C-alpha cells in the first residue's frame, strides 16, 4: 500500500474551484484521499505548485501514420538517441519519438493522460500494440469514421442501425471516441483528387454530403452518450477562407455536444488560393454562444514539425509547397493518411499568421474551459514545446518579444498588436492543460484533485520563467506512484488503456457483415480485435 502526503504546496485544482490554496494532499492506493497515516511518505512541496497530471486531448502518438512518420524522419530521430539504462528501454526522440520515448517524455513533462486523436479502425491492432509499448501515461485513441464507406451507405439509407454500428466499431477496436477528419473529403480525394467546396457537395458514388455525415455521426455519438463527444477535424484544413466551412460545420452540429480539433488551422479568412487573414474572433464569438462546443487550438510553434494527418489531401498541398520528402497512404474503405516534414518560419507570412491566430484563440477572452491547449503534436510542433507555449500565454513581455520576431505584415492582420495584455493565471493553465481536457473526455477521475480522483499529480517549482517551470516538473505522480523526481524517471510502469463503450444491439453485425463483404479485403470475423493482451491493462468508460 503506497501512501503519500504532499505538504505545503499551492494547490491549483480549478475543477474543484481551488486556486492556489496551500494545504496537504493525500494519496493512497492510486487515489486521492482525505488523509493518510503517519507512516506515509511525505513530499515537501513548500513553494511549489501542485496540479493534476496533464491531459493531452489531441496528439498523434501511435498507429500506422506515426510509424510512417518515424520511418520518414530517420534523419531527425538519429540525432536524438536515448540510451538503454537499468530502468529505461532505448529509443529515439525527435519530433516523433519511439513508443517508449513517447511515454517517458510525456511523463517527464508532467502529463499523465494522452489521446491519440486519429486511428484508422482497420489498424486498431497496430495502434493498440504501440500504445501498449508506450509506458507511463494512460492513453486512449479516437477512431476515424468520417470517410468510412460502410457508414456512408448507412447514412445514405437513413439506417436505424447507425448508432449501433458506431458502438460496435468502438467495441471492435477498443477505441475511446469518434473522430471525423475532413468528413467526406478524404474519400473524394481518394476517388478523384477532388476537394470539398461546400458541405452540401455530393460524395460521388455514395449520394451523401459532408453535412449529412457530420450531422448523422455527430447526432449518433451524442445520442449514444459516449464519454467524449464527436471530435471534429473540419473540412478544408489550412485553406484561406475555411472559417466559413468551420462555422457551417458548427451550425450543422448546433445543440449537440462536439469538440473541434486544432481550430487554428480552421480559422482563416480570405479566398482559397489568396492571402489569408484571421477570423478567430468570429469563431470565438460563435463558441461563446454555444457552450456545447469545445476546441483545442493546434498552435503552431516556429521551428521543425511534421504534418501527420488522415487528411490525405492536405499533405499533397504541403508536398507542393515544401518539395521535400513526403508520404501518402490509403487505408481501404476508411480513410487516408499523409506525412510531410514541415518547418514553420517566423518570417514567413502564412506561418506567422497561423502562429498569431493560435494566440488569438487563446487570448481573445475565450472561456478556458472551452479552449484547450494543443499543438496537434507533431503537426504544429512537438509536445515538448508546450512549456514554451505556456510561457507565451503567461508572460506578456516574452510574448511581445516573440511577436517582434514574427512577420510584421502577418501580425498586423491579427489582434495581437491591439494592446492584448491578457496573461494566463496558473489556474487557467491548469484548466487548459488538464481540467478541461479531462472533463471533455468524460474522465471523471482525472483532471482534478478531489477525493476519489486518480492520484495523478504534477508538482512544479514556482519559477518566474514559466517555460523552465513547466519543462521540468519537480515530481510527477501517476496512479499514486512517484515516477519523476527532479527531471529524472525513477519508476517505469504501464499506463492504462482507456476505452469508451456504449451498449448496442448485437444484431447490427448482420447488417454490417454483407457491407464488409462488398468493400473490405478483411473478413468481417477477423476485423474485431480479440486478443485480450492488446487491451490490457484497461479501464472502460461507459456511456451515460
Amino acid at each position, binding site marked *: 500500500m503506497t501512501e503519500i502526503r504532499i505538504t505545503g504546496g499551492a494547490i491549483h485544482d480549478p475543477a474543484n474551484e481551488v486556486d492556489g490554496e496551500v494545504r496537504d494532499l493525500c494519496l493512497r492506493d492510486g487515489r486521492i484521499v482525505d488523509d493518510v497515516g503517519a507512516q506515509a511518505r511525505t513530499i515537501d512541496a513548500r513553494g511549489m505548485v501542485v496540479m493534476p497530471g496533464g491531459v493531452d486531448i489531441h496528439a498523434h502518438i501511435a498507429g500506422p501514420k506515426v510509424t510512417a512518420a518515424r*520511418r*520518414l*524522419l*530517420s*534523419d531527425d530521430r*538519429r540525432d536524438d538517441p536515448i*540510451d*538503454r539504462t537499468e530502468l529505461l528501454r*532505448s529509443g529515439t526522440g525527435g519530433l516523433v519519438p519511439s513508443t517508449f520515448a513517447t511515454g517517458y517524455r510525456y511523463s517527464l513533462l508532467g502529463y499523465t493522460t494522452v489521446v491519440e486523436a486519429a486511428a484508422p479502425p482497420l489498424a486498431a491492432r497496430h495502434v493498440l500494440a504501440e500504445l501498449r509499448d508506450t509506458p507511463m501515461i494512460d492513453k486512449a485513441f479516437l477512431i476515424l469514421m468520417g470517410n468510412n464507406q460502410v457508414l456512408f451507405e448507412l447514412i445514405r439509407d437513413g439506417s436505424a442501425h447507425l448508432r449501433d454500428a458506431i458502438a460496435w466499431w468502438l467495441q471492435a477496436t477498443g477505441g475511446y471516441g469518434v473522430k471525423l477528419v475532413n468528413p467526406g473529403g478524404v474519400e473524394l480525394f481518394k476517388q478523384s483528387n477532388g476537394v470539398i467546396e461546400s458541405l452540401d457537395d455530393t460524395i460521388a458514388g455514395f449520394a451523401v454530403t459532408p453535412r449529412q455525415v457530420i450531422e448523422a455521426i455527430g447526432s449518433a455519438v451524442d445520442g449514444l452518450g459516449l464519454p467524449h463527444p464527436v471530435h471534429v477535424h473540419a473540412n478544408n484544413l489550412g485553406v484561406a477562407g475555411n472559417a466559413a466551412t468551420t462555422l457551417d460545420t458548427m451550425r450543422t452540429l448546433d445543440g449537440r455536444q462536439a469538440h473541434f480539433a486544432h481550430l487554428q488551422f480552421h480559422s482563416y479568412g480570405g479566398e482559397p488560393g489568396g492571402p489569408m487573414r484571421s477570423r478567430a474572433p468570429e469563431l470565438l464569438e460563435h463558441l461563446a454562444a454555444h457552450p456545447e462546443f469545445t476546441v483545442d487550438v493546434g498552435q503552431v510553434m516556429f521551428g521543425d514539425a511534421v504534418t501527420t494527418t488522415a487528411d490525405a489531401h492536405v499533405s499533397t498541398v504541403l508536398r507542393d509547397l515544401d518539395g521535400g*520528402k513526403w508520404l501518402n497512404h490509403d487505408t481501404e474503405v476508411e480513410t487516408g493518411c499523409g506525412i510531410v516534414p514541415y518547418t514553420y518560419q517566423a518570417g514567413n507570412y502564412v506561418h506567422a499568421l497561423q502562429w498569431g491566430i493560435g494566440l488569438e484563440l487563446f487570448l481573445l477572452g475565450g472561456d478556458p474551459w472551452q479552449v484547450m491547449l494543443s499543438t496537434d503534436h507533431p503537426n504544429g510542433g512537438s509536445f515538448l514545446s508546450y512549456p514554451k507555449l505556456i510561457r507565451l500565454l503567461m508572460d506578456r513581455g516574452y510574448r511581445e518579444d516573440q511577436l517582434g520576431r514574427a512577420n510584421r505584415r502577418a501580425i498586423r492582420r491579427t489582434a495581437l498588436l491591439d494592446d492584448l495584455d491578457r496573461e494566463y493565471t496558473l489556474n487557467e493553465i491548469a484548466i487548459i492543460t488538464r481540467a478541461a481536457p479531462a472533463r471533455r473526455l468524460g474522465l471523471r477521475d482525472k483532471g482534478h484533485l478531489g477525493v476519489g480522483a486518480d492520484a495523478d499529480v504534477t508538482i512544479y517549482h514556482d519559477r518566474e520563467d514559466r517555460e523552465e517551470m513547466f519543462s521540468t516538473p519537480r515530481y510527477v505522480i501517476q496512479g499514486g506512484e512517484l515516477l519523476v523526481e527532479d527531471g529524472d524517471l525513477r519508476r517505469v510502469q504501464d499506463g492504462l488503456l482507456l476505452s469508451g463503450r456504449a451498449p448496442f444491439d448485437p444484431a447490427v453485425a448482420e447488417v454490417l457483415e454483407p457491407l464488409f463483404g462488398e468493400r473490405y479485403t478483411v473478413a468481417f470475423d477477423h476485423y474485431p480485435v480479440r486478443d485480450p493482451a492488446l487491451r490490457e491493462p484497461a479501464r472502460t468508460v461507459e456511456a451515460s
Partner: protein
Amino acid sequence: MTLTLTALTSPPARVDLSPLVPETTRGRSAIEVAGTAIRCGRDRVGVGELFAVSGYGTDELVLRGELGRIDRIGAGMRGGRLRVEGSCGDHVGARMTGGEIVIDGDAGAFAGAELRGGLVRIEGSAGASAGAGYPGTRAGMSGGEIVIAGDAGQEAGAAMRRGLVAIGGRAGDGAGLRMLAGTVIALRGVGAEAGMGNKRGSIVSGRPLRPLPGYARAVRYRPPALALQLRRLRELGLEVPDAMLTGAWTRWAGDRLELSRGEILIFDEEEVAAG
C-alpha cells in the same frame, strides 16, 4: 607525446568511439582519457578496458592496432588531426565538420558519411556508401573532401549536395546515386548505374562507361574546371596521369528524370592513345 590509443583486443561487440576526438581529448591525460565511457554494443565501457592509452591530449590523436570493430572514429569531429594506423570500422569521420582524418589502411562502410567539412584521407580502400547520406536523408554530404587511394564500395557519394569524393581506384555500383550536387571522381572508373537520380552533380569516370538511359551524350571537350580539380587530387596524393589533365572527356548530361542538369564525364582513352 601525442595521445595514442592502442587496441588491446578485439572487442566483444562493435564500439562507438565518437566521444574521443581531438577536441574532447585536448589537455587531458592518458588516465583521464582511459576513464571515458564509450559504447560497446549495448553496454558502456571505459576506454581503458579496450585500449592502452599513452601520451597527452593535443590537437592530434593516434589510434593503433586491430580497429576493424571500432566504428564512428572521428564522427562529428570539428577540428584537429586524427590518424588511424591500420584499418578501421564503419562511419569513420561521419558528419565531421572540420579537421583531418588519415587512415593508413582500409575503412568500413559510410566513411565520411554526410561530411560537412574537413578532410578524410583513406590510403587503402573504403567500404560501401563512402561520403553518402544515411538512409532517409535527402541531402547527404554538404562539404569537405574524401580522398580514397584505393577502391570504394557501392553508392559512393550518394545523396551528396556539395564537396568532393575522390577515388584513386574504382568506385562500385551506384556511385552518385540521387546526388544533388558536388563531385565524385573515380580515376579507374565507376560501376554500373552511376548517377541514377542525379540532379546537378558531376561524376567523373577515368575509364569507359555506358551511362544509364537517363543520360544523353552532350559533348567531347577538355574541361578546364576538371583539370583544376585533378591537380587538387595530385596535391592530395592521388596519382593522376598527365593525359587526364590534357586529354579529352565526353560529357553525358543527366539524369533526364531530374531535368538533365547533372553530368557524367568519361575520359576518352582513344585520345590518349592518339596523343
